């Protein structure tokens, strides 16, 4: 691979809208950054904030959570719950100095392959500009601070 920093982005895609959007992007042969590594979940409401933390802790440079548009959730309003958790999580992350662009939420319906692809491109560029996450330096600090307790599950 080239010298350029290639961020790794973990995507939590809901089964009904966003995973299908990613499928559609592929079927339509829309070329976008190969930096997204998707995980299928049934609903964006299934995304436990710990999944996001674990992803960042395990080497991902960014996390994209994608679900159905508000009002279109297959499970009525799971996406709204995802939104609530997302906003809380973002507050915590910002206190740890993790940049805003690293964890993003997107509404992409099953027909919006292009929306998903464009966001992945944009996010890849944004994180590339930020550089690697370096979770252990950033969150745990250089002075051997106490690790943030992430519950074992």
């Amino acid at each position, binding site marked *: *691979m080239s010298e350029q920093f*290639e961020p*790794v982005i*973990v995507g939590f895609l809901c089964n*009904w809208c966003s*995973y*299908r959007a*990613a*499928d559609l*992007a*592929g*079927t339509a*042969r*829309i*070329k*976008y*950054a*190969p930096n*997204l*590594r*998707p*995980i*299928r*979940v*049934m*609903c964006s*409401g*299934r*995304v*436990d*904030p*710990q*999944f996001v933390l*674990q*992803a960042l*802790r*395990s*080497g*991902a440079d960014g996390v994209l959570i994608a679900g*159905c*548009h508000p*009002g*279109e*959730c*297959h*499970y*009525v*309003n*799971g996406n709204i*719950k995802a939104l609530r*958790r997302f906003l809380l999580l973002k507050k915590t992350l910002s206190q740890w100095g993790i940049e805003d662009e690293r964890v993003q939420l997107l509404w992409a319906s099953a027909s919006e392959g292009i929306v998903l*692809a464009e966001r992945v491109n944009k996010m890849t560029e944004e994180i590339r500009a930020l550089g690697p996450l370096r*979770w*252990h330096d950033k969150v*745990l600090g250089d002075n*051997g601070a106490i*690790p943030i307790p992430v*519950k*074992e*599950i």
Partner: protein
Amino acid sequence: MNDKKQIPEQLEKVGVYICHCGSNIAGTIDVEDVAKWAKNNPNVEISRNYEFMCSNTGQELIEKDIKEKGLTRIVVASCSPLMHEKTFREATERGGINPFLFEMANIREHGSWATNDKAAATQKAKALVNGAIERVVHQVPLEKIPVDINPATLIVGGGIAGITAALELAEAGNQVYLVEREGTIGGHMAQIDKTFPTLDCSACILTPKMVDVGQNDNITLLTFSEIEDVEGYIGNFTVKVRKKARCLIEELCTSCGICEEKCPVKVIDEDYGAGLGYRKAIYRAFPQAVPGYPVLDKDNCTYFENGKCRACEKFCPTDAIKFDQEDEILNITVGNIILATGYDLFDARRIPQYGYGRLPNVFSSLEFERMVNASGPTEGHIVLRDGVTEPESVAIVHCVGSRDQNYNEYCSKVCCMYSLKFAHLVHEHIPEAVVYNFYMDMRTPGKGYEEFYHRLLKEGTHFVRGRVAEITDVGRNPAEEGKLIIQSENTLLGKQQRTPIDMVLLSSGMQARHDSEEVSQLFKMGCGFDGFFTERHPKLAPVSTMTDGIFIAGACQGPKDIPETVAQAGAAASQVAKLINQGTVMMEPVRASIREDECSGCRICNNLCPYNAIEFDDEKKVSRIITALCQGCGTCVAACPSSVIDGAHFTNTQVMAELKGLLWDVQPAPQKTPA
């Protein structure tokens, strides 16, 4: 970190199969490299690459390996699981292991098709395959959940879509509940005078079907009723229907119509009459209404105003009038639901420059439909608002509220054709009248539709291509005095023009029902930004919704004409009939469950469930999931602070394992000084 979890105590024997999909995958991804690399994972027993895994030989490969090599888990890296997950699960099962011990890595849609960078695609494929291997190791055998299908069906909306679907199902011997908000079935089609392009009389083709509905023993017709609540899931819905009080004992009413005749109150008929005619306070929308008994309009009835009158009660020969009748709540149980709730006509008042509601001789399309109908308020005479003067010139304005960024962006599809029909009807009724069509583009796709357009060209209608800017009654010269003036562009001549006219018909588009969003939430299925209900797949599942057991038909899904609506209603009915014939469906075992002995009883999950599937056991002080109601979204699983809710097939362990596998190449270096 969690080293002990990285290698389960006993290694699994995973079979990994990388599909070439011809050159679809192999053209971009180095499948051989991926297959060879996958062997490095200690759990992998065998790793192959094959040209077409979904082919019979590909599937047999899996079956054979399971039997000969004693594989315990299967991973196929190929297309999207939405495409072939079922195929490979079945192959896994035929091989002799539980189908839920199979996992798929999507390296085509998410991999080879999404990039041209071969190295990056191969790297991504490795990550996806590794994620699937790590995940599959933690997967557990599951059984699909059989659900019996209640053979009764609920159809919401009694327009032509609901009527068609109800008849199709009922005539095949199935029980149907047809619920309609108004006092009679028929819907918009009953308001229409003629249908394009054949110019059949709408009532003549609709009313026999309405009668069939009324007479079919398998159809329980609930008019003047609304759905209040829907619970349950495919096969087992419980629906609460409010049967509003008609103030009439249906069993006694003979539909003689004396009450309607004697009622002294005259009300403008806003619904069926489109505001053009009058009705009584106790009324049937039209003489062929099904059911034939009237509805008493409490808001306008003198008795409900001041306790006097009671004329209908006095004259009713069978004593059927019952003023103190109360709404009835019915709980019905059905296996499937078809929504056929139709559309609203775009309200032309929203475009003030067209003057509808302000300039008397600007008419809406439904007003014109009623006017031109022989049984309508003017007995079929096309007249100005004064009720007597025949117009010498009529303008029909297309795309009112449609193809307009300010209102509805979409093309309403039917308006060009019904505008042409209007032009024809004006020619027919007033042969000497001059008729204009102001159109943007003439859209006439459909059998016999273009031919109808050509017919109108021959009949002498003037076609002006351009959007109408304004309709005004302020004339600039004597020729314009007393007329309506249409200010429009003529794009074919490339200039502005003013056309003095006597009568203007606004061809408003169809839009979603004003309450479609609430309805979609009530039935837990989606609607788009424009309010039309969302189909499961725009091409391959046009009448299914994302919610199993709920189907859509007709204009509630998007603008469409009568033939399309009827076709869709038939399709929805056949989807339901298929499920009824099957008797049972197998549901994905993706369900949540609570480990009750570990539950702290905090009740955080209780209010999160959109299906009310979580109950609280007051004695044991723990929450419990009602499996039959759970749909498996996993919202509660994510919320449980003690992590004691398991979301089957999407457990925390499985997702975390997939995550770990996915990030195999970027695992951070060990910490410097772990505390």
